[in-house]
């Protein structure tokens, strides 16, 4: 299996690679993250200012750490890097496994809806916009 950062990765990112192949190349063909579930609105922050090349990570991993110097949702990371969400989830799994990012999953709401104070805060926040 091709790992991110492998020299062979180039083969998959050339002009012949379609939009479907490229995401697979970025993740080395993996479809699922090694750890974590990563909701679209899970919030991610980097735990370091940068990652060196020593870590064996690919350029997309490094780009995520750069982006996540500010808190970003999974959806925002995918949009800014122009990668499918599934690909970003795999990359985030790699980073989480190395403790390079911290992730906050959205509050689980088994009963369906969150606390009243969340609604009030959002209403007040919108009014103040």
């Amino acid at each position, binding site marked *: *299996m*091709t790992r991110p950062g492998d020299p062979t990765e180039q083969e998959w990112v050339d002009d012949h690679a379609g*939009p*479907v*192949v490229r*995401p*697979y190349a970025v993740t080395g*063909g*993996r*479809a*699922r993250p090694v750890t974590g579930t990563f*909701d*679209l*609105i*899970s*919030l991610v*922050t*980097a*735990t*370091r*200012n*940068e990652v060196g090349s020593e870590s064996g990570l690919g350029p997309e991993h490094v780009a995520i750490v*750069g*982006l996540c*110097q*500010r*808190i970003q*949702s999974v*959806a*925002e990371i*995918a*949009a*800014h890097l122009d990668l*499918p*969400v*599934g*690909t970003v989830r795999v990359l985030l799994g790699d980073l989480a496994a190395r403790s390079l990012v*911290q*992730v*906050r999953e*959205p*509050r*689980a*709401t088994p*009963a*369906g*809806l*969150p606390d*009243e104070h*969340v*609604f*009030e*805060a*959002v*209403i007040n*926040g*919108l*009014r103040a*916009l």
Partner: protein
Amino acid sequence: MDYGRSERPAGAAPLPTAIKILIAGGFGVGKTTMVGAVSETRPLRTEEVLTETGIGIDDLSGVEEKSTTTVAMDFGRITISDDLVLYLFGTPGQDRFWFVWDELALGALGAVVLADTRRLADCFPSIDYFEGRGTPFVVAVNCFEGARTFRLDEVQAALDLDPGVPVVLCDARQRESAKEVLITLLEHAMKLREARRRAAGD
């Protein structure tokens, strides 16, 4: 992009909570417009690549045989406070991609169903979906030029809505109007939440 190196002291403050609201409705009804009108930045776009076959995904040699579909979602962000971030998601085309809707609807505070009175039936699938799921929603009639003006109770009846479901007029291009719609939704969702809590008997 240059983010200050010292900007993020590791583990300093807890990460905020993220919440979301969905903006649904038929094709071209103004979903992306509404997301953009009220968000901090212009709408962002994210894609899910869906693979028809679930097996053999780890095998690169199988890639070209799989049939894949790309589903695009528009979204925007509104920072409510240091510990609360609201995301607005425009839902992708109705009738297909219901499992993407399921992912979007999970944990959502509620949904805005945009309607165009020139083709009211276009929003039926959205309404059916949120009714079926029990997701709080409001119907916002987007006022396009040249649309015959309906009374809101006519729209309510035509859509066969539960009398408790708010129906409001809006202009999806206007920030204030979009804000009002969202506030109406949140107030409605709060009421529903309270009613359900009481019905559950505590």
